């Protein structure tokens, strides 16, 4: 696999996992406030 391909799969992982983590953080904070 070339550097471009590795960068692309890394970006896909960051988007999928990163956004899910941020959303989970938001939900956790919402629960704590209630």
């Amino acid at each position, binding site marked *: *696999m070339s550097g471009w391909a590795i960068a692309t799969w890394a970006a896909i992982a*960051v988007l999928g996992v990163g956004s899910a983590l941020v959303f989970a953080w938001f939900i956790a904070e919402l629960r704590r406030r209630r």
Partner: protein
Amino acid sequence: MTGLDIAVLLAYVGGVLVLGWAVSRRIGSFRDWFVAGGQLTTPLLVCTLVSTYYGLDVLLGGSEVAFIDGVVAWFWYVRPYYLAIILAAVFVAHRLKRYDFLSLPDVAAHHYGRGTQTVIALASFLYSLPLLAIMGLGVLLDVAFGLPFVWGVVLGAAVSVVYTLMGGLVADALTDTVQFTLMCVTLAIAAAIVLEAQGGIDAMRTSLPETYFQPMGSYPGWVLFVFGLSALSVFVEPAFYQRIFAATSYRAVLAALGIGVVLWAAFDWIVTVLGIAAAAAGVDTEPRYALLTLVIEALPAGLAGLFAAGVVATAMSTIDSYLLISGGNIAYDLYRPWRRPDIDDRSMLRLTRWAVLLAAIVSVALALFFRSIVSAWIFMSTMLISAALVPVLVALWLPGRVRPAAGLASSLAGLGSALLFFIAVNAGGATDEEWGTVIWNVRLLGRELALWQEYAVLVALPVSMLAFLLGHWLGAPPREARP
């Protein structure tokens, strides 16, 4: 698009409207509505910053550049923004948190007075009109459902307006969290499926010219420089300022921007790769529609609807945020200081809601009038940079020393010279089919010079600096010292 796709999309739009209605019952004051009462914490800030900045101008504009010229889209069209965002977070955000401002023109009003506030509010209004996102929505509903462009534009704007009017920045930030997750996840899935189908990025390399994978691409150097320079808009970005004022603390802003930059970089890279994939697949369409056409054809039923909802989310998170700002520019920054300086909170809230509606109508009219995306984006950010960058940054860095005449001269001369340059190039030049922009070829001192309309900022920024120095030199000092 199947019935399942349409059901997914409708469920999303319905959910957003219900959320707006639920939030509207908790709004008590203008501050609650406009800057969420200063209560935005890190995760909310990440979601609202990332999704607001990522409108269809990036999704379609970025993929447009990638489709035409390859990875230069990431290296030169978007990467300079990360640097600007990090610099703004470190050097500008904490200075802003010291004051009790609600908007970008408030900064000008505090340091230079009403005249400069008005010029910057006008530039901010022009910049903030979400016509690109509204145009993009019209295109999407056309490509996905065959809905006439005009109806798509009006329908998309109407839904965004209704929930922005109801819930203000709180509803905006809350729906941004859903929109943010939806747009990131659907784009990641779409990219994985498209890459699998095409045999990965390495297979694309064999079918495309080598320049597609050179960071400098084949654009002229000056154009790349202007692309990079447009990132300066971050330093005076109204939505960025509004979110800093709305944050609970400076630390929350820093954390949100740090996480945001990583997500933005990933998002942009995927958009770039999908633009290149469309070129490699030989998608036969206008460059700005390449990404949508490729992805909607590649995805199975249900997922296509989810992706369409993701794109609608991308557009709506931008439309609602900027409608709020451009409406605020009319009511809070332009009308209030001249006509009703002592306006009460309830009237301000009511007036701004009407102004949001007005801004939406102007945006829809412009969206139906204009066509191109990248050029329009460069035009709008040029207006903002030319009018606001010099006076606002000097005021934040050297408060107490600035003179009202310097602010007014700088913002007026910057905005004026940028507009004149655009008018001159459009009057004297012609549309260049290869680059899709207006270029004016002139002979100056015996040399051929190709003036792109994108070069306006190269003239306007020095003019704005010069005018600032002249105004400072000739103008009177402020009557009382400012903190």
